[in-house]
């Protein structure tokens, strides 16, 4: 493991914006697709799910980053990150769910059903591991996970809109259901390629 990379304020803004648009986890890295296709049916559900993802991504990064740098690396266990991260994230999300149910029932009613779905979501694990791979310092890692969560939110809300339009239209018999959904998702994904390079140029 090399040295940690530190960022200026501008660098953090670039990280945030590129996590939302350029490196969008759903549409560019193709992580978290199952929940993206599953829960984007209705706008309110998509919003609830995305908020839960943002929260869990932040939480996961806040916990896994110290584990990597203060527990695994000093003992030469860096290669164990995947299994340890899954374990810790899953346990933590469960703990949060229990705590929410007890202390903030209204929030639990809104986000509760999504939390168990996210426990081992690949997008959450992906953020935690990529933060380590890119050797971000703690602040940059937190900003990156916020951006990734917002990117997920953007993709979900956009796709919920696309889906509601598709439901109004008549789909050819052969494309009904999942096929047209995947075609639509790929077109939305291609549209996001238009952002590549934009953010870096914008702030340089």
């Amino acid at each position, binding site marked *: 493991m090399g040295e940690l990379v530190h960022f200026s304020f501008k660098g953090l803004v670039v990280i945030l914006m590129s996590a939302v648009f350029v490196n969008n986890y759903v549409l560019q890295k193709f992580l978290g697709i199952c929940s993206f296709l599953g829960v984007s049916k209705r706008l309110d559900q998509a919003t609830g799910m995305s908020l839960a993802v943002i929260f869990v991504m932040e939480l996961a990064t806040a916990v896994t980053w110290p584990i990597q740098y203060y527990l695994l690396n000093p*003992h030469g*266990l860096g290669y164990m990150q995947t299994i340890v991260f899954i374990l*810790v994230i899953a*346990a933590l999300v469960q*703990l949060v769910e*229990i*705590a929410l*149910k007890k202390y903030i029932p209204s929030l639990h009613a809104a986000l509760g059903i999504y939390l168990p779905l996210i426990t081992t979501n690949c997008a959450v694990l992906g953020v935690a591991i990529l933060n380590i791979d890119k050797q971000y310092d703690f602040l940059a890692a937190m900003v990156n996970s916020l951006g990734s969560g917002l990117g997920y939110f953007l993709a979900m809300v956009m796709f919920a809109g696309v889906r509601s339009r598709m439901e*109004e239209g008549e789909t050819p018999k052969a494309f009904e259901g999942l096929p047209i959904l995947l075609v639509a998702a790929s077109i939305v994904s291609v549209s996001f390629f238009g952002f590549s390079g934009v953010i870096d140029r914008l702030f340089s």
Partner: protein
Amino acid sequence: MSAIIFAVVSVTIIGIICAVMLAFASKVMAVEENERFPEVRNCLPGANCGACGFAGCDGYAHALVEGGTKTNLCVPGADGVSKKLSEVLGVAFEDVVEKVAVIHCHGDCKATSDKLEYRGIESCRAAKLLYGGKGTCTFGCLGLGDCAKACPNGAICLENGIAHVNPRLCTGCGICATACPNGLITTVPATVKTAVYCGNTDKGALTRQACSRGCIGCKKCEKACPAGAITVVDNLAHIDYAKCTSCGLCAEACVTGSISSRISQI
């Protein structure tokens, strides 16, 4: 070898710490669920229509378990559900006031006309965005059947350009009321015999131009009603069903026929 053992042991320790933490949390922060809740929830139909006034069937079941709520609020479930609920909860059975949806417009193609030809998405909500709909009356039924699509029982049909409710199939859940972009649908007690079939709040002359069966706000019904159940607000008659005795005098007095017997609408 020792490296493997070290890795296995440390991951196991992390796992055990997490497990202990979770077990501890689930004991300390356990939320007491009333054991009668699943039983009560199973009695309810699960349509989540909100006719009871709570947030879905779960909300109503919670309120029932905690007590202080009547068992006769589930309109679609009618007497059967009320009976089951009172058995489970051990309280006296109460009769459900059956409700039925009423679409407050009967400006069909004979009574009113179109001001434009609409060729957009087949949805009232979409049609409403274009100059308030295709009809000359912007308050009336758009006739594209958002309510019919929303109805879980297929109780609404479209005829002569407006929607009609079949009271035999209607369970009074009121889902259609939220689907109508003009807010023309309300649920009324099934025993009610007369209703105002107009939603136009324009002045009488304007209403008259738009539709021959619209309420012009002449207040004849208000004077005719012996129970004082009718009030005219914003040039439109309203019937208070808490006072209405279903005598039918208002329907006789109405000059445009916008108040009429519910039976004649079927």
